[in-house]
């Protein structure tokens, strides 16, 4: 149960002989082994019927839909296997208790800064002098401890991220100018890569939250209800540096993306289909990487870490065991 399938072709996804198959517009038939599937990511124009939806539902497989411009546009989720009124009650209680909510929010920001810092340290050790950014992140990390409100925590996280993004222009090779984060729509190649990567992180976290009884709309750092699944936004912040940013650096520094992989028009820069495919491949390889987990005493994939994060939060809410957000330890 950990394979993601990315469909870039146009065609039809259907149930066939107890598994799922894709029939492309050129009438090519490709089979997707259902038993190990975690989710289908639809990037092309795909038709499907209720029969395949029920079948995916039976197998607990989600379908994440991406729009024409790389943006996540929604998911068709399997019926909730886990339902627990108690979990939702505790989740809301923690949200409603200002002190409790603040504590979880601070913990998430603390972990995010740690993970951004890990990337900076990596490049600091490789011929770049990034001491001032490291200092800035360390100061933000001290600040977060004393943040009194959630807005303040958001502010600290925003300024940490700004300091962190400041190093991108130093690390990225010529031809890849970043100049700060812009989205809706992304204005250059680097921003389009980050946008696409972050939407993949987000969709994978939506799947991970679904595996628990947590309600994806009740969040702690982000304000709930304003945007889609705000709990997924909370947890995605922790993983963006480890997943999105590292994949961006890797692809760009290795020269695996060319101008043909981007489409620029009207102040926007978006990935083309081949660009998205290259990115998704590298992203999936990263999700498949494994690491020895000190507490679970076994090797787990990066993808599984997303699920662990949802489990940890749920356990914290139900048992009061302290929540310690994901901090890259390797």
């Amino acid at each position, binding site marked *: *149960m950990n*394979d*993601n*399938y*990315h*469909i*870039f*072709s146009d065609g039809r996804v259907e149930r066939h*002989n*107890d*598994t799922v198959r*894709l029939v*492309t517009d050129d009438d090519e038939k*490709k*089979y*997707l*082994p*259902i*038993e*190990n599937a975690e989710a289908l990511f639809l990037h092309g124009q795909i038709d499907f019927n209720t029969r395949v939806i029920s079948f995916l539902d039976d197998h607990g497989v989600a379908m994440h839909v991406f729009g024409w411009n790389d943006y996540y546009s929604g998911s068709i989720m399997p019926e909730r296997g886990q339902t627990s009124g108690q979990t939702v009650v505790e989740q809301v209680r923690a949200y409603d208790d200002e002190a409790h909510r603040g504590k979880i929010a601070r913990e998430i920001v603390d972990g995010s800064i740690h993970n951004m810092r890990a990337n900076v340290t990596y490049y600091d050790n490789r011929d770049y002098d990034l001491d001032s950014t490291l200092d800035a992140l360390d100061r933000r990390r001290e600040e977060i401890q004393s943040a009194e409100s959630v807005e303040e925590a958001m502010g600290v996280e925003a300024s940490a991220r700004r300091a962190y993004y400041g190093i991108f222009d130093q690390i990225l090779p010529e031809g890849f100018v970043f100049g700060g984060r812009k989205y809706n729509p992304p204005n250059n190649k680097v921003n389009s890569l980050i946008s696409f990567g972050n939407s993949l992180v987000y969709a994978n976290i939506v799947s991970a939250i679904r595996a628990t009884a947590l309600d994806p709309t009740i969040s702690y750092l982000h304000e709930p209800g304003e945007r889609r699944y705000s709990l997924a936004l909370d947890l995605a912040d922790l993983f963006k540096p480890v997943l999105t940013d590292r994949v961006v650096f890797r692809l760009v520094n290795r020269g695996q993306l060319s101008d043909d992989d981007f489409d620029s028009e009207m102040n926007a820069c978006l990935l083309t289909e081949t660009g998205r*495919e290259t990115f*998704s*491949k590298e992203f*999936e390889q990263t999700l498949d990487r494994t690491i020895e987990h000190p507490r679970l005493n076994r090797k787990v994939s990066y993808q599984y870490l997303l699920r662990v994060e949802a489990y940890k939060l749920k356990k914290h809410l139900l048992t009061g065991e302290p929540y310690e957000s994901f901090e890259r330890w390797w």
Partner: protein
Amino acid sequence: MVYVVAVYDVEADRTRLFLNFLRRYLTHVQNSVFEGEITEGDLEEIKRELDSMLEAGESVIVYRMSSEQYVSRTVYGEDPTDDSHFL
């Protein structure tokens, strides 16, 4: 997770059965040959099911590797496992 290669030799009119069954778990690489990474649990399920599907004179062989890293695999011509996750 384990990496398996499954090959079967069954009556011509019954190959479809095995094909359809194994497609749920593995990638179809050649006539009567499947491979892929699966969980230990799924492997047990596959073995049990295949065993019950067999008739006299037919056989299935499942090669099991503890990981894909232990497989040295060279493909001449087109590799059907290429990008099986990116369609």
